[in-house]
């Protein structure tokens, strides 16, 4: 495990936080977009027991950011961490996003599922950015965090909120569907709640395009040891999310 110094830990909305860590730059250079790390508190306390996984949100030199939503014990504890404290981490873990995703590429994010796309955008050849479109949906306006960051990449962005407080009213997959109908997208990379991923899978099948789903389930080891993180595979058997994923081909998962 490695050490990380907390540079800041800022609430962006009621439940969404941005954690900025300083880590060893050699270690930093090993992370690829789509990979994750597990974060352990550095204080002998055994609850939560299992370090929680987080995607790399942004990375430059030795500054690694995580965008996270407070949902339970681990994320609540993380939200109480403040600058100057030290955390420990294990990573990089998991497989990166597939390389050379065919353009035009649609990034479909539900809520904090947007977290990992920024690191991808940081690493894409700048010439590709004009062929990338971000579909970003949340329940309400205040959860649409980090818009400035995503705008800074110069990509096309469409927003949706369930309550219509900003962008299109409704689900993010509704706007994605419109573009798929217009055949404006070759590949979709989607991250968000299970319901959204199901919908993306359906849409991709219907419109015969390739989709990858960045999935979520409770992980223990994150290293492939425990076989606990299964996602049913189409036709039988299971993926192990931490080893085979977290990004899985939509047509192969049975959700």
């Amino acid at each position: 495990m490695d050490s990380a110094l907390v540079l800041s830990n800022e609430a962006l909305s009621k439940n969404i936080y941005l954690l900025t860590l300083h880590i060893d730059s050699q270690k930093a250079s090993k992370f690829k977009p789509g990979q994750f790390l597990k974060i352990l508190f550095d204080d002998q306390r055994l609850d939560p027991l299992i370090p929680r996984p987080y995607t790399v949100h942004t990375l430059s030199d030795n500054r690694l950011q995580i965008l996270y939503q407070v949902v339970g014990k681990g994320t609540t504890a993380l939200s109480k961490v403040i600058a100057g404290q030290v955390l420990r981490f294990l990573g990089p873990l998991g497989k990166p996003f597939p390389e050379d995703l065919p353009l035009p590429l649609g990034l479909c994010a539900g809520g904090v599922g947007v977290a990992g796309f920024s690191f991808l955008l940081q690493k894409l050849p700048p010439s590709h950015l004009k062929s990338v479109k971000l579909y970003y949906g949340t329940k309400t306006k205040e959860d649409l965090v980090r818009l400035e960051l995503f705008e800074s990449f110069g990509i096309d962005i469409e927003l949706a909120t369930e309550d219509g407080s900003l962008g299109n009213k409704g689900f993010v997959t509704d706007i994605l569907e419109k573009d798929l109908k217009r055949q404006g997208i070759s590949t979709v990379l989607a991250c968000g709640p299970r319901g959204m991923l199901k919908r993306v899978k359906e849409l991709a099948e219907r419109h015969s395009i390739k989709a990858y789903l960045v999935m979520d389930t409770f992980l223990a080891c994150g290293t492939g040891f425990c076989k606990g993180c299964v996602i049913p595979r189409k036709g039988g058997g299971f993926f192990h999310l931490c080893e085979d994923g977290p990004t899985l081909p939509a047509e192969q998962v049975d959700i």
Partner: protein
Amino acid sequence: MAGERSTLKVGPLSFRSPFFLASGTWGLGDSLERYFTEEEIRTYIGAFVTKGLSLEPMEGNPPPRLAETPCGLINSIGLENPGIKVFLEKYYPLLKSYEVPIIFNLHGKTVEEFLALVQILKETDVRSIELNISCPNVAEGGIAFSQSPETVARLIRGVRESFSGLLVVKLSPIGPIMEVARICEEEGADALTIANTYPAMAILSYSPLSIIKGGLSGPAIKPLTLRLVYELSQKSKLPIIASGGILTGRDAFEYYLVGARAFQVGTANLIDPRAVIRIYNEFVELMERYERLSD
């Protein structure tokens, strides 16, 4: 013990380190090399215990397979494994190259299946097995064995007849453990692993209701298994391999003080794959301090 580390003997085998990687918490061992140097494997890992292996491949249980509880982890993997034959072909050769003793953790649904597994191993150079008669996550076999001393007697007698290597029996903390331990001793087992996980349950969501029934491991159970090791070590002459919530050298040292002679690191591997190195070093330091104190 710090001094005689190179000669820790359990049954017919000796181990360089009293720390074993517990079954199911390092998968099939194919990524040992990713987290340890060869030197580290030889120094710190007394033995690698395989994931529970069955006659036929097992797919394991559907999700959810995991839940965290306060200071504990519930798992219901359901013994996902490629089966003994595939393991011997595909994973065993690589594992052997690490020069670390390999203990085959075996799962049979019936006594007959266990004996069939042992027959297969007889054709190989495998010299150590751990009979898993305590898995709480399978519909047949597993923990049910530990509830029936007669069946355990029949099982161990059968295995002992055809297998002369290291025979470890991994008991369930639930059920007539004292009696089962006595029978293991009578029937010629070499050592006991105390203990497997505790039947437990968690609720993951309310609506729709999603529950998990599985085995509880981790620090939460350490005071319970410590008590079992303490009670058993006074009753049984078999060496005890402690398994339950060993996250630090202190944990192992406490098991040592109540009579354990080797230690399995389980859940700790899931937190940090290199945990065994830290635990080993902490343990040795405590041993040395304690030996000095008791002079």
